[in-house]
C-alpha cells in the first residue's frame, strides 16, 4: 500500500485528523491533529491491510523559543505488509503534552519516558511517567534548545568556566 492510500484510508475514517504531509522525509510523514492521534493510531494498528504492528521509534523535537513549538515524531512499521510511515504531531511549547500511545504499543512506554525526561513533554495516560535516563532530582530538560545547565549537582560543579585553569 502506497503512502497516498494510507493517507486516504485515514482521511476517510477521520476527516479532521490529517493536517498535512511531508513528502520530503524518509519515510513519508503525515502531520496529525494531536487530539486525534490515539484514535488514528488504533485504526492504523488494528485495520486489516494496514496493520502497523510495530512502533519503532518515538522522537521529540524542540523547535526553539522563536518558533515556540515542539514536535513528536513516531516511526511506524508493518511487519507483514512492510509499510513504512512517519507520523508527526505539533505541540505548544509552553505546555507540551500529548496522549500516550503505550496502550497500543508497549514500546511507547519507555520511549515516551525518555522524551519526557529530555524534553519535558507530558504524555497523558502514561502508566509510569518518571525520568528514565537522568537522575530524578536533575533540573531542566537538556534537549530543549534554550536549556541552561544547573550550576551544582550534589556539590559537584556541572559546568566549568573554560577560561579558568584547573588548579
Amino acid at each position, binding site marked *: 500500500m502506497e503512502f497516498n492510500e494510507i493517507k486516504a484510508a485515514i482521511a476517510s475514517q477521520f476527516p479532521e485528523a490529517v493536517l498535512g504531509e511531508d513528502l520530503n522525509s524518509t519515510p513519508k510523514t503525515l502531520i496529525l491533529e494531536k487530539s486525534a492521534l490515539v484514535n488514528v493510531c488504533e485504526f492504523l494498528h488494528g485495520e486489516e491491510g494496514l496493520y502497523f504492528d510495530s512502533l519503532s*521509534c518515538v522522537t521529540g523535537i524542540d523547535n526553539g523559543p522563536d518558533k515556540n513549538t515542539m514536535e513528536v515524531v513516531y516511526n511506524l512499521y508493518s511487519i507483514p505488509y512492510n509499510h513504512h510511515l512517519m507520523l508527526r504531531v505539533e505541540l505548544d511549547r509552553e505546555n507540551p503534552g500529548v496522549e500516550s500511545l503505550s496502550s497500543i504499543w508497549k514500546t511507547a512506554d519507555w520511549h515516551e519516558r525518555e522524551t519526557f525526561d529530555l524534553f519535558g513533554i507530558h504524555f497523558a495516560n502514561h502508566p509510569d511517567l518518571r525520568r528514565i535516563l537522568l537522575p530524578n532530582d536533575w533540573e531542566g530538560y537538556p534537549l530543549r534548545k534554550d536549556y541552561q545547565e544547573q550550576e551544582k549537582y550534589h556539590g559537584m560543579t556541572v559546568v566549568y568556566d573554560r577560561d579558568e585553569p584547573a588548579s
Partner: protein
Amino acid sequence: MNIQYIYDKDHLKNSEPTVNNEASIKKEEMLINIGPQHPSTHGVLRLEVVTDGEIVKDVIPHMGYLHRCFEKHAESVPYNQVLPYVDRLDYVAAMNSEHAYAMGVEKMLGIADKIPKRVEYIRVLVAELNRLASHFVAIGTYGLDIGAFTPFLWMMRDREHILRLLEWASGARMLYNYIWIGGLFYDLPVGFEERCVSFSKYLKPKLEDLKNLLISNKIFIERTANVGVLSRDLAINYGVTGPMLRGSGLKYDLRRVDGYSVYPELDFEIPIGEGQVGTVGDCWDRTWVRFRECEESVKIIDQCLERLMTDHKRDKEFDPRAVVPKKIRPKAQDFYVRAENPKGELGFFFRADGRADQAIRCKCRACSFVNLSVLPEISRGHMLSDLVAIMGSIDVVMGEVDR
C-alpha cells in the same frame, strides 16, 4: 580544584528513588536491589526486584548510570565527528553501529549509490566480523552468568582473534572509527583477506566445539529451556528486535527486509527459534539463534572475502576516501534509517535544516534499550536465579541503553 561530591544520605533517595517502598509491598514480600554494581547485570544496571520468597513478583529496571548525552553531542558537532560517539554506543559492536550511521547520512546526502562496491564489501566484512565478536561476548558471558566458566574463556579467545584483525585494519581494538561517511578510513591492510580466510577456517570447528560444550549441554538446557518465554505477539508489541524477536519464532531480519548495502547479493539464512528443547521464545532459543547467526556470519564473511579477492580486487588506484564529502550538509529533511545490529534494530532519526553542518536533532533508537523494556514482563513469576538467566539472554550493553 574544589571539593567535588558532597555526601548526603538522602542523595540516592532523591536521585534514583525506588518505585516500591515498605508500605506499598505486602508483608511477606521483600524488596531487593540487584546492581548497579553486579556482574550479572552486564554493566551498570540496577534492578529493583520485589520477591515473595524466591519468586520474582516484579522487576523495575533503573538506568542512566552511563548516560553520556549522545543526542546532545550529536546536535553540536558535525555529522562526521559524531562517528566516534556512535562507536561508544554499543561498544562491543562498533562497526555495525558505524555502518548504520554512515549509511543514514550518505542516504541523506544522496551519495549512497556512488559508494564503490569494494568499500561496501569491506564494510559488510568488518561488520560481520564484529557481529561474531558481539555474539561471542553475548554467549560467553551468558554461560558465565549461569555457571559455565570454560565457554567464556573459549569465546574470549576467539573474539580476541577478531579484535586483532580489526585492530590491524583500523588501529583500534574496540572503538574503530573505521567506516566513514562516504567511504572508509583506509583500505584493508595488505594480506588482510588471506588472514581472514585462515581465520574463517580456524573458526568453523571452534563453533562446533561451542555447540557441543555449551549449547547442547544438558545442564545449560535445563537452566535455560522453558525459562523467560517471550511470545511472538508480545515481542512485536514491545518493539523487541534482533535475535530476541527471531528467537520468538519470527523470521524478520532487516538485512533481508530492507536489503541495505550489499546484503541482497549475499547468500545467508535467517535462523529462528523453534523450541527444540522447550518452548518457542525461551532463553535457550535466543542463545540458539545467536549461535546459528555466528555460523551464518562466517558464511557471509567467506562470500565477502571471495569477492574482495576476485571481482573487487585490491588496486593501487583504489581510494576508499574518493567519495568522502568535504563538507557534509544534507538538504532540509527528516530521515529515519535502521539497520540490523547484533542486538537488534539500530535506528537513527535525523532532522537537517539544510543550513547547518550539524543535525538539528539526532535520535538514536537503541536496540538494547527497547529489548530491556520487556524484562519485567518475561521475568514475573520466575525464580530469582532465573532472573539472572533471563537478564543474560536479553544481551544488553549498557552503553547503548543509557547512551
